[in-house]
């Protein structure tokens, strides 16, 4: 009797421990990866020609529109509208579009046809009001996954994921991700990591970097 009881306890205990293990494995976020190609800043100094001379005209002419309009990620079955956004005047933060099915392009940085620097698109992972966001599964992208950006006139640029990183918001190197020089790249940003239900904020940012496919 006591032997059978022992076996039962052992079996139940093993099942519980195993299910804890499975849950723990599933809960573990996907690790960061980064392929070294395509993220080094360009530092080639051009030969000094004669002194450059500009016309001292007032800066009135606004450059042609270079806003991306759509972002598609086939691996996530994602196809979202891209809004041109700037800075939240109250906080100084990136003004991510409040609607969770839209993503925001940082209009002060490099645009759709940029030959250098980081084109930044940020989107909600989720929101308390609207549920899952366009970038809910951003952290599942793998190296080589394709990202398509559509620009003015329906032109499309294809990028390939080269890095996925997760940083605490207090330690994220935003200067690097918002750089306007260096190799051209597409940087996708959302939230991730542990959620604090009191402040209603995530602790981390998830950043995916994609390089243009030549």
């Amino acid at each position, binding site marked *: 009797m006591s032997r059978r009881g022992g076996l039962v306890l052992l079996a139940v205990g093993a099942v519980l421990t195993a299910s804890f293990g499975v849950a723990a494995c599933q809960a573990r976020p996907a690790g960061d990866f980064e392929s070294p190609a395509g993220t080094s800043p360009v530092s080639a100094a051009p030969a000094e020609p004669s002194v450059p001379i500009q016309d*001292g005209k007032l*800066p009135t002419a606004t450059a042609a529109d270079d806003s991306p309009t759509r972002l598609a990620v086939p691996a996530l079955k994602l196809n979202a509208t891209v809004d041109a956004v700037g800075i939240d005047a109250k906080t*100084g933060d990136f003004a991510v579009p409040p609607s969770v099915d839209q993503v925001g392009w940082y209009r002060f940085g490099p645009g759709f046809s940029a030959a250098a620097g980081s084109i930044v698109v940020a989107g909600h992972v989720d929101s308390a009001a609207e549920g899952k966001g366009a970038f809910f599964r951003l952290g599942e992208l793998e190296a080589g996954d394709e990202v398509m950006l559509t620009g003015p006139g329906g032109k499309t640029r294809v990028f390939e994921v080269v890095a996925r990183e997760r940083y605490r918001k207090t330690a994220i190197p935003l200067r690097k991700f918002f750089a306007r020089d260096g190799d051209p790249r597409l940087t996708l940003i959302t939230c991730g990591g542990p959620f604090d239900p009191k402040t209603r904020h995530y602790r981390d940012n998830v950043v995916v970097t994609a390089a243009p496919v030549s």
Partner: protein
Amino acid sequence: MRVSQLRRAATVGAAALIAFGAAGAFLTGPASAKANARVSVVHGIPGQPVDVYVNGKKTLPDFQPGKVAGPLSLPAGEYDIALTKPGDPIADALLTVDNAEVPGGANISLVAHLSADGKPVLTPFVNDTAKLGAGKTRLVVRHTAAAPAVDVRAGGKPVFEDLTNPKEAKADLDAGTVSADVVLAGSDTRVLGPADLDLKEGTATIVYAVGSAEDKTLDIVSQTITGLHSAPGGVPSGTGGLADRGLSLPWYGVGIAGILLAMLGFARLATGRR
């Protein structure tokens, strides 16, 4: 006795202060002296193209009014600058400035312009290249015209008041377009503008009022300094908590209970065998 002790302490303290001060000066001195200055040249004298000589070397041939040249990268030091009519020898210069101080690491605009009473002069301005907050732009206005004091207005409201030659005024604003004009100080008498200024984010736009009110040659020359942008403060992009795939407390309870039960089972088995 007491007094002499106090005095001694004070002397030691003073000596220490001097020593620290000297060390500080020594440490910070060479670093700032090493960096080159970035120097732009602005031509704000209407109707007179010039050759610009720096230390006797023709650096900008046939430099036209209204143009901005540079930036040149110059080591810190003193420079002799001369402006001549195109092709004229340096001895017949229209304007010379000897031993102009160029401090290391600074960003400077050398402006050839008219003084308030209409004489050609060369004025150096140090440009504020401090980083701007994300979304911001910097507007600098310099009065370098033979004209009385002016107010600069944006959208009809004075933003810089009572600006005189050769002074500047500046402000950091939200990036975007502003409609600006220049009026005689304290009046509605417009002397320049209105013009729509496209003030780009992360950029300093420097606007020079040049020319002469008397000769009706008042005009604007502008210079921009880019690359002063900063990254946003953060990217807040989730408020739902659905993406928190961390383990909640109950799961840890399940794990601990499992381990305890298994241990108990082992214990039973072991005692049962005995």
